[in-house]
């Protein structure tokens, strides 16, 4: 059973401002109207029922600050194919296309370290794997085709000011529309 925990700052996120400013002002991509960053944890659990899996995750989030810190973060635990509620995130620019870029470190040292703590120190053996990623949601003006091209261009740093969010030598980037992300297609592509 797989769940994704989306974590974002309660306060304005300077990383998102920096990325938006860099892409608009330095890359000249003024079609990008908004950038939002989430830290995400993909958890794979071995439990008989969804309710017991969610109870384990609630315990992890409620009793530790391992995946999110309640003093600065808010989070949403998402089952596969579940929508993101408006109270957690909604597009700020109506009419724009939303593209999602998931960036994962090839080594994923952060995810592996958290998994070790969860299993060895907290004794939660039902969690089989934890993968950390940074999820960027870009709101891009214009038609869908052009917006997808921009999202794909900024996802991977290949040349100076051509790509930003992932370095292809140490990270991988998965790019898709918001619908593709919500349908789980990004992660299916990653597994493929």
């Amino acid at each position, binding site marked *: 059973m797989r769940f994704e925990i989306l974590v974002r700052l309660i306060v304005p996120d*300077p*990383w998102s401002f*920096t*990325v938006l400013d*860099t892409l608009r002002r*330095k*890359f000249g991509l003024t079609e990008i109207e908004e950038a939002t960053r989430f830290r995400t944890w993909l958890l794979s659990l071995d439990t008989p029922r969804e309710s017991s899996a969610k109870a384990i995750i609630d315990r992890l989030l409620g009793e530790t600050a391992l995946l999110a810190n309640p003093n600065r973060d808010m989070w949403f635990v998402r089952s596969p194919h579940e929508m993101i509620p408006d109270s957690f995130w909604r597009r700020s620019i109506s009419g724009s296309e939303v593209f999602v870029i998931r960036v994962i*470190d*090839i*080594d994923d*040292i*952060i995810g592996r*370290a958290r998994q070790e703590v969860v299993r060895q120190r907290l004794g939660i053996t039902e969690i089989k794997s934890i993968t950390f990623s940074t999820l960027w949601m870009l709101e891009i003006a214009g038609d869908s085709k052009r917006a997808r091209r921009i999202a794909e261009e900024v996802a991977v*740093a*290949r*040349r*100076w*000011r051509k*790509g*930003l*969010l992932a*370095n*292809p*030598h*140490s*990270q991988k980037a998965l790019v898709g529309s918001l619908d593709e992300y919500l349908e789980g297609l990004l992660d299916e592509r990653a597994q493929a």
Partner: protein
Amino acid sequence: MKRSVAIIQFPGVNCEYETARAASEAGLEARIVRWNSDPQLLRGFDGYILPGGFSYEDRVRAGAIAACDDIVDVIRQEANKGKPVVGICNGAQVLVESGLVPSRDPGSVELALAPNRGMGRLGYYCDWVFVKVSCEPERCVITYDLDPGEILPIPIAHAQGRFTSSIPGLFDKLEDAAQIVLKYCTPDGDVPGGFPEDPNGSEHFAAAICNPEGNVVALMPHPERSAWLRQVPADLKGKWSQRRRELRGKWQELEGKGPGMGVFRSMRAYIEASLS
């Protein structure tokens, strides 16, 4: 006439003053220049140093945002004229992210400075390590005044210092072209058996990589933190620590040059040779 270097102060760097001091001690006229200064101001300098720290708070990735600044484009243009550019730690990350190093395909991002690997725990690692000159001294700006095979004790302080690439065979090519100019080693200069002599799992034990021309170098250790003998710990192996022990209590002599000063001295010699 003193040769001048600009120490580039991106928001979030924290080694600019020590770097300027070490460069001055080596006989260079060092001036700290802010990242948003008039780019034309930069053109008058004979060389450039990108110091260590956390430019833009390491947002997105260490060095990734600073690499996109206009000032980096000016530095690229000046480097193309043959002027020396040295990136130290975070400065090295900026040079790698901007495609200035290793520049086998100019402008292309061919490397990453990935998270450290092999130390058995996550994150930032600070320690003294040993590096060895692994090229002919004239090969590049930071080895110009060092001896072939010279071993330097020098501090590192980074979380993302592992030179790596997904391009097959790239490191063999860099090795063949003598672009890996400093390598981590044991105190005797041998190949490290693992952590901690190899502090981050860098491919081919690379601690510094230059561009094909040798005038642009990405250097992960901090030479400005070992520029004076008093900075060298007395309990390391090797001649530098032995010297440090011998001079215990002799404060004036401890103000003498340390192993890292060779990097700045090399930069000065390189500039003077290229301008003569």
